């Protein structure tokens, strides 16, 4: 439920880190596909992703956060091992 003007925070000063709640994944026209078998865990994709959408746990790339990935294709471009393909997003 969206807040009305009386409920909304003064000047929209809100707590930090709210970008996480804003699902930007539906902006995508192309979608990255992660190929686990080709990945050497260099984490170049994680380093370059502008939207923190590469899921990494214990130093290992696990996949892509499709709730926030905007499909820019940088991960696919920087991957030295061809482990991320860009495909057309189908809704």
């Amino acid at each position: 439920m969206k807040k009305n003007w009386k409920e909304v925070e003064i000047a929209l000063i809100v707590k930090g880190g709210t970008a996480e709640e804003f699902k930007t994944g539906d902006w995508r026209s192309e979608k990255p596909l992660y190929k686990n078998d080709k990945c050497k865990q260099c984490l170049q994709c994680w380093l370059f992703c502008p939207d923190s959408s590469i899921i990494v746990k214990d130093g290992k790339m696990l996949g892509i956060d499709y709730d926030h990935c905007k499909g820019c294709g940088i991960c696919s471009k920087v991957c030295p091992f061809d482990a991320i393909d860009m495909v057309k997003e189908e809704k």
Partner: protein
Amino acid sequence: MSKIVAKTGNEAMAEAMRQINPDVVAAYPITPATEIVQIFSSFVSNGEVDTVFVPTESEHSAISACVGAAAAGARVMTGTSSQGLALMHEILFIAGGLRLPIVICEVNRALSAPINIHCDHSDTMASRDAGWIQIFSEDPQEAYDQTILAMKLSEQLFIPSMVTTDGFIISHAMQRVEMYDDREVKEYLGEPKSPYNLLDLDNPITVGPLALQDYYMEIKVQQANFIKESKSKIKEILNDFNKKMKRDYSVVEKYMMDDAEFCFVALGSTAGTLRYTVDKLRKEGKKVGLLKVRFYRPFFEEDIFEALKNIKGCAIFDRSDMFAGTGGHLFNDIKSALYNSSSRPFLRDYVYGLGGRDIDVEDIENVYNDIKDFTENHGKGESVKYITVRE
């Protein structure tokens, strides 16, 4: 215990700043406001205040630094004039929108072109829609008092304020000023109060996020409503100021208005000349009064409406033109305020004094005769006149 001193408007404002003791002052010099922050910077060097003074490379940066400091919970002030205020324009709206309690000591000066360093109200008028409180001063005493008052208003209401004086006419003219003790000002203002604190690392916040079709309007309606509601709060704070600081200020000041048939309405220093002329005309038996508008923003239309309800003809003095073919700012605001009144006086706008052009008692006496004729002719003829100009 107060003391009586001789101060120019700029000196009075600098003294008010010293007593307010802001955490941060970021400023860039501009005639005729330079002295305010120049004198204040000597207070900083002498260790008389606890302020961090940030000399910036432009007014845009000065007000931006003020926004940053205020968002971090600091008590913040600056001073500027004319082109400097115009260069701040973009950020003024951000300060208003973020509800930051910043106070600007603003000296009214004409905007270019042609370049001019003297008084008119075009600079302040151009920023009237930025969501700031705007207070006009008639003399150095009001400049001093109202700077202290503005800090209180901004910190109570979370609306930024600009206190204006008239360039050279007040800023550089020395007059009697009754100053409070430093302690009295300190006690009156109390600790700095801010709506939020960006540097509170335990409670991180986002300041100035994006708000599109789904939230922008709610935020702006919230701001508009707060400004509307602030009018009664401003009156309360002003009453409290009068009581504690022993003054007698009101949002609009009436002089000889009770039985007046005609009246003058003006902002700033010209109110002094008008009051003198009212006295002169009263001695000749003429029923004339003066309405001085102290707060231009927010606009106290109910008070103005009330003050003018028994007036037959009203001469509005505008030291600025809207360049819309409809006269000056004060005239247009008052005309709008009276639209729903059943007892509207005849209104004529007298645009005067642009770029520091002098206005004297004789000019005002002519206005009295003119507004009387205009009223007797039922408002026939142009509603806007330019006076103090060669024709």
